[in-house]
């Protein structure tokens, strides 16, 4: 067994909170640079240029990319040969979030209860997803997820006979209804299959894949391409001002499901698609 003190996790999470909010990923910058070449609308190009300049200012001056520094979503892949010592893992993660959001002057957006709505003051609790995997490492992925694009996300229990075309219609409907609210150009995570709750999680996980990495399944790689083209025919464009580039990419994650079911979830992410990863 490899022993890891949970304090190490706290420190890493705190640093990752800052890193993710000040640095737009290289894949997104590449995607936006490509989009700038393809966008035909002058105001759309201006918006993309603003977003690229924003990323530069953010990392240079240490100002968060966006004022919505998000839900603190954390994915933990815990190697089954790791023994965690020194305290409670959940508490260690929350402590990291508390420290990171305080240290880097990030916005505290969490309320204690969906109806009472008192701000917890430190952006906890984090939303943590655990996975036990073989090996003796811990992989931590930190994803600050904005409320604007989260609010525009949807899930639908399709009928199996609706198949691929039902999925395409649902994705287009969702992106169209979101319009400018999700801060396009967006990244679209689509979860297909599983149960009601795993489907939503698949959609979120789909957002984590680097933009230029194609789906390892040939069929889904092709569907992603077709979906992205269809979305970019909607005309919504950067910030919804009209244009060619509504989405930078569509990513699909699929999972086995029940003979009676075809759950489909669409998790929208804005261009401020932030995620950082560390392996301990």
């Amino acid at each position, binding site marked *: 067994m490899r022993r890891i003190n949970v304090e190490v996790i706290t420190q890493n999470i705190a640093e990752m909170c800052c890193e993710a909010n000040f640095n737009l990923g290289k894949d997104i910058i590449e995607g936006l640079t490509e989009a700038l070449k393809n966008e035909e609308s002058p105001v759309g190009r201006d918006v993309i240029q603003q977003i690229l300049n924003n990323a530069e200012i953010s990392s240079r001056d240490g100002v968060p990319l966006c004022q919505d520094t998000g839900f603190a979503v954390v994915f933990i892949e815990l190697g089954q040969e790791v023994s965690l010592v020194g305290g409670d893992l959940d508490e260690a993660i929350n402590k990291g979030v508390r420290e990171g959001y305080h240290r880097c002057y990030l916005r505290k957006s969490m309320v204690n209860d969906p109806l009472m709505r008192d701000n917890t003051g430190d952006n906890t609790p984090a939303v943590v997803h655990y996975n036990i995997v073989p090996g003796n490492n811990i992989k931590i992925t930190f994803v600050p997820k904005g409320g604007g694009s989260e609010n525009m996300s949807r899930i639908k229990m399709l009928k199996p006979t609706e198949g691929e075309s039902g999925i395409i219609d649902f994705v287009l409907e969702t992106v169209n209804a979101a319009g400018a609210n999700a801060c396009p150009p967006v990244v679209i995570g689509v979860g297909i299959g599983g149960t009601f709750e795993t489907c939503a999680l698949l959609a979120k996980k789909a957002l984590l894949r680097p933009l230029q990495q194609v789906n390892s399944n040939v069929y889904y790689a092709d569907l992603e391409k077709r979906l992205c083209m269809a979305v970019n*025919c909607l005309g919504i464009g950067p910030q919804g001002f009209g244009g060619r580039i509504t989405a930078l990419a569509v990513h699909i994650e699929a999972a086995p499901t029940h003979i009676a079911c075809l759950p489909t979830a669409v998790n929208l992410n804005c261009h401020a698609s932030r995620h950082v990863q560390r392996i301990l």
Partner: protein
Amino acid sequence: MSGMKVSLPLTEQMIHDLRCGDQLLLSGFLYTARDAAHKRLVESLSKNGKLPVELKGQVIYYAGPTPAPPGRVIGSAGPTTSQRMDSMTIPLLEYGVKGLIGKGSRSEEVKKALVQYKAVYLAATGGAGALLAQRIKSAEIVAYEDLGPEAIYKLEVQEFPVVVINDINGNDLYEAGQKAYKRLI
């Protein structure tokens, strides 16, 4: 960033001339207010017709910035989704607010009220909070300090980039823009 330089508050003539799709660089004062501040503003108006800060003729910016680190005027300060303010916007337009800045489309009722009360809805780039913060030269809390990031700040801005979404003639850039670029699949 391109755009026509416009000083705040907006003059009647300026509001009259603005058209959906115009890109503007605003200089002058903006007042931030989002969900919680709106709730209080509207309550205050219905109680005695008064507001804790004079917003007649002014422009409201839907924003809840990140905390300002020492030595800085403000943190990241981009727009939030306007839709959440729709149900609380009409009393403010009726009162005399002349401009709103946010992101995303407005309800039919708000669009009608913009025409009726001769006010404009403008959008700033969502997710460009670091860039927009550079255009903010000073920030002062003027009401509801207890609301933290949701307090009302008076911001002095210089060449703050926005796009006109809804003008006083009932045009809407979100509709017109999408129509112009929509393609059949």
